[in-house]
């Protein structure tokens, strides 16, 4: 397994090791640990992860063992807990399998509409089903996996937390994997990305990979450009006040979360976004930025 890089602070290093554990511990543990990291309770996040690894007898490499010991120490937990981990140089684990069908992207674009303005540095969102169980106490399969790519200005733990919350609010159960642009991918994330399809964060989901207006990701998956969020990070409160976004109402089941379905050929051009690409924010005036944002919100509302 290749290294998954890289952050310097404790939350970033925790996020990185949680990425490495994707598919090796259960999704609920990952989601809970990421939430703890995001709300600045790193000590509890490390203990949750270590507890799951010990209880599940999940093997870790000597390097991972060292990282976990260091994280326990730095979060003022008990480093000796790492002595109880099962350390192996190599082991066999059958690879996870993924599938986009049935429509893993259903409802995700609409679910993320209320939070997208508050997410910094998000470059793409993809969705896929994992059809194999994860960890020693797996939940039911298939399990929806949402892959988020963020740029260098993004905050991975916060992004995972906010997107996870938004999906949960919309009644969508998913595990959210936030990956940094340019960082090496684990085998798990490469396999997931190879079957995932992009979500258009204008409130739609793409049933097929985008054919225009997009760019190719490092892993070969198509990436639909989403609206720039730099203006939102500059003054999110003011933006929210000017044009409040209707919260997505929780729904009882995923089946009930029926998003507008695009035609198979639909891509950003079908939404009138042919030429829409991330625009250098410094070339826009405040008025233009507001108009751009309102345009996207109107599009999103129309499609709900």
């Amino acid at each position, binding site marked *: 397994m290749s290294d998954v890089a890289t952050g310097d602070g404790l939350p970033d290093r925790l996020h990185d090791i949680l990425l490495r554990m994707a598919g090796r511990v*259960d999704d*609920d*543990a990952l989601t*809970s640990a990421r939430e703890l990291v995001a709300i600045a*309770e790193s*000590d*509890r996040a490390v*203990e*949750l992860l*270590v*507890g*799951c690894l*010990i*209880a*599940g*007898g999940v093997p870790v490499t000597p390097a991972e063992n060292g990282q976990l010991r260091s994280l326990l120490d730095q979060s003022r*937990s*008990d480093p000796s*807990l790492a002595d*109880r981990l099962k350390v192996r140089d190599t082991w066999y684990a059958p690879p996870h399998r993924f599938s986009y069908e049935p429509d893993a992207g259903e409802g995700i674009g609409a679910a993320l509409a209320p939070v997208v303005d508050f997410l910094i540095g998000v470059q793409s969102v993809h969705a896929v089903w994992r059809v194999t*169980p994860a960890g*020693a*106490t*797996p*939940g*039911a399969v298939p399990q929806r996996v949402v892959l988020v790519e963020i740029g260098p200005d993004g905050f991975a733990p916060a992004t995972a937390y906010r997107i996870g919350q938004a999906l949960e609010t919309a009644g969508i*159960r998913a595990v959210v994997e936030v990956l940094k642009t340019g960082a090496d991918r684990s085998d798990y994330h490469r396999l997931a990305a190879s079957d995932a399809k992009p979500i258009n964060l204008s409130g739609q989901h793409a049933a097929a990979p985008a054919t225009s207006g997009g760019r190719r990701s490092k892993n070969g998956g198509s990436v639909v450009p989403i609206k720039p969020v730099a203006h939102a990070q500059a003054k999110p409160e003011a933006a929210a006040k000017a044009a409040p976004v209707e919260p997505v109402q929780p729904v009882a089941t995923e089946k009930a979360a029926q998003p507008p379905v695009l035609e198979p050929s639909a891509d950003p051009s079908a939404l009138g976004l042919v030429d829409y690409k991330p625009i250098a924010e410094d070339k826009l005036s405040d008025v233009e930025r507001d108009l751009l944002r309102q345009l996207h919100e109107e599009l999103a509302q129309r499609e709900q």
Partner: protein
Amino acid sequence: MRDNAELNAHELLLRLAGRLSDTQLWRFRDWLASGALPVLGRALPRALLHDRIGLTADEHSLLRGIGADPALTSSVLGIGAVPEPAFTFVAEAADQAASGDPIGVVLGATLRGREGLGEVRCAWRHAADGRVHRVVLVTAVADHHRLTGELQRMLRALGEHEPCVEVLAPDFDLSPYHRAALDVSELLCFGAADLATA
């Protein structure tokens, strides 16, 4: 309190049903079932401190009896009596009359006639926020924590993300939570042991 950390931990985690969040409770019970008691001894008192959950004097003894750090356990709030459950319980889920209970069928088929088990029962817990949760109640003579772990894993694989499994010893002094659940529960099956429900 017994001179056995696992028994103490199981009893304490039973008594925390309905008081500690389901998310944490099933996880801690899984750790106990899987031999991760040292992590539990650290994480449980921290969870109680974080969520401001108080313990009775007997429960404090149980917490110390699992090897938890005395510096942490000393800070856990004390209460005079176990609080009444903040839930109501009913025998059947709302949609059960029409659709049946496939998970209950699996539980019954798996546990029927099993050695060491008494009754296997099921109740449905209603929270003030409208959420409804299955509560499985089992009487057993031994290996309570491991049976809890096994049933939790089964329920999770069947789609219950935060399973509520209460494996009770015949002499367990029922908490208000368990009494309320048992009072309305429906029988799923009998094990091989002839145990009267407490």
